[in-house]
């Protein structure tokens, strides 16, 4: 469980979130669409204020903790920050360069730099995940894993197999597995009927 200071930060963050929601309510154009958000938002705000008062009345636990514990806490925060940084960079890279390129690079990065594993282990792990991803999600489930804003990878197995890219890349990229299957199924049904 966290310290009182962390609890205070969290309750204030939640309070801030609800305030942002409430401030947005007047911008909703239709009055009937505002009723429930207003009721729920106001009730949540009241409860959060009650909780915030309780958190701020509680004594600060960190003041009584020793140096060792403080050092441990700082080290933990640093380690958590490292993971968050990796997650954010991974998502940014997926956006720019696609899953196909990002996944191996990202795995090697966290394995080598964060967990301090050997090059051999890191490369093997990256290769394993990449192969699983391409076979299960790329080939079997036909997900468009090779699409990034900067780099459209030629390793998009779904597109390669179906040849869908050349026909309508923009539309196909927005169509889910489900939609594609439905479309295909109805086409099959139509063909059978005809």
């Amino acid at each position, binding site marked *: *469980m966290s310290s009182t200071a962390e609890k205070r930060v969290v309750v204030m963050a*939640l309070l801030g979130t609800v305030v942002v*929601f409430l401030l*947005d309510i007047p911008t909703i154009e239709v009055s009937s669409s505002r009723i429930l958000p207003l009721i*729920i938002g106001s009730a949540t705000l009241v409860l959060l204020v009650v909780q915030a008062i309780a958190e701020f009345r509680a004594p600060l636990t960190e003041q009584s903790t020793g140096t060792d514990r403080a050092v441990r806490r700082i080290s933990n925060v640093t380690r958590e920050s490292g993971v968050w940084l990796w997650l954010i960079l*991974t998502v940014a890279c997926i*956006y720019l360069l696609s*899953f196909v390129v990002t996944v191996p690079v990202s795995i090697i990065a966290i394995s080598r730099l964060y967990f301090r594993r050997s090059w051999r282990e890191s490369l093997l792990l990256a290769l394993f*995940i990449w192969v699983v991803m391409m076979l299960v999600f790329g080939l079997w489930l036909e997900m*468009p894993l090779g699409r990034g804003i900067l780099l459209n990878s030629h390793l998009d197995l779904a597109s390669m197999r179906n040849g869908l890219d050349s026909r309508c890349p923009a539309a196909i990229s927005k169509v889910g597995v489900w939609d594609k299957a439905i479309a295909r199924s109805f086409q099959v049904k139509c063909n059978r009927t005809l």
Partner: protein
Amino acid sequence: MLEAAGTALASIFTGQHFAMMMLGVITGLVLGIIPGLGGYVGVALLLPIVLYMDPTSALVTILAMHAVVTTGGSVTAVLFGVPGTGQNVATVFDGFPLNQQGKGALATGAAISASALGGLIGAVVLFALIPVVRPLVMAFGTGEFFLMVMLGIACVVVMATETPVKGFIMAGLGFLVSLIGQDVATGAPRFVFGLNYLWDGLKLNPVVLGQVAISEMVLMAAAGGTIATAGSGKVRLAQRELFEGFLAVLRHWMLLIKSSIIGVVVGIIPGLGGEAATLIAYGAAKQGSRESEKFGTGAIEGVIAPEAANNSKEGGVLLPTLAFGVAGSGVMAILLGVFIIFGITPGKQMLTDYLPLTMSMAWTVALANVFGAAIMFMIASYLVPLTRLPVAILMPVITILIMIGSYSTYYSVSDLVTTLVFAAFGCYAWKKCGYPIAPFILAFILGEEAERNFRVAIATHGPLFFLRPISLVLLILLVLLLAYPILRRGRKVSRSSAGAKEGGMSV
């Protein structure tokens, strides 16, 4: 009816039907294990195949797949803290702590067994209720549905959380988040903050996987070591512990039946969904337990209850789908589409002309659960030792799988951003500061549907819609439930003061 049931059973065990049921079971288990993929992807994969078959084979395949998806998901929920589907969230609460204590095989065995037995109970109830369900479903109008949702959320807050204020805060936040996007009634955008992505609202996968799974990965990576810190991790010992898990379920047979009934009842009410069934069953199990303080830290009852409800609800969901053509869930809506493709109209016809087909579906739910559990028992003993692998290997693998799972719904990188935002929320609000996650998830899932029903109820019956007989009963139950924490607190205070007078320990 018995004759039809016998004919249907014999039909299931013919070559093609049995093979297709096993195909459905294996597909369901695999998709359940992969985080974020669930029944929808399964239907998408199977639909192109089943349309070439006869109606019984087609429906058996889809139903078998759907019946066991959550059984697969329960294993990853226990062993890695990653719910395979949204319906396995409640299993994480106690299953994962049990695994960390070295009792992963026990918890997995209990989860699989509870799933299978819950599924069987659901199928039995389906058989029994087919002729009598009509008045029950028809009695529920929009106002009743809205109050039922409120009752469900209040149940989870009051029963499953130690601090009701925090529980209601999370329920309120979940409700607000569920309202993001275009209003279903008027089309007016709400809480979109100028972002096109938010116009369609937030999806379940990114929100749940972020809150529950990614947040766990962050803490796991920061802590290092291995997931399971105790236990041997050997395959043979795991097999024995899996069997002990099965015995634990039999020991808690009352809980199994109670949770299964909750699952069936929630399943019958269209729109409430599997997540609600599991969370309500979890709350009820905690409330009914003598050791409720153990919940959240590794109570086996906390694994049995949601898993039993999870699979038993399939029997309940099938009832309104077959009897009235009212789909109780998204996959059931697709099943209705399959009915129509084959020229079958759900309704009274399903209980007369197509009774053998209806019975085949009930048998499929029962048998798929049994075969699914048997397969998972065989696989799980080999998965348990994986929890002894260093976090340095597991964390990147699982995190990437979760990210692909989040991305899989709409192939949108924005969903990955949502996952990270909710991961931070889950990590700090839930795991570090004790704000319960269950009310948030339940309110998030049911919020939109509750609002729709609330507005229709007001439009059709006026603002006093809650004065209708069933609504009034639900409202009284809601008020009693809300008053319960105050009464409980009062009782605790009076007990502690009595204890102090007698010189004993305060409760």
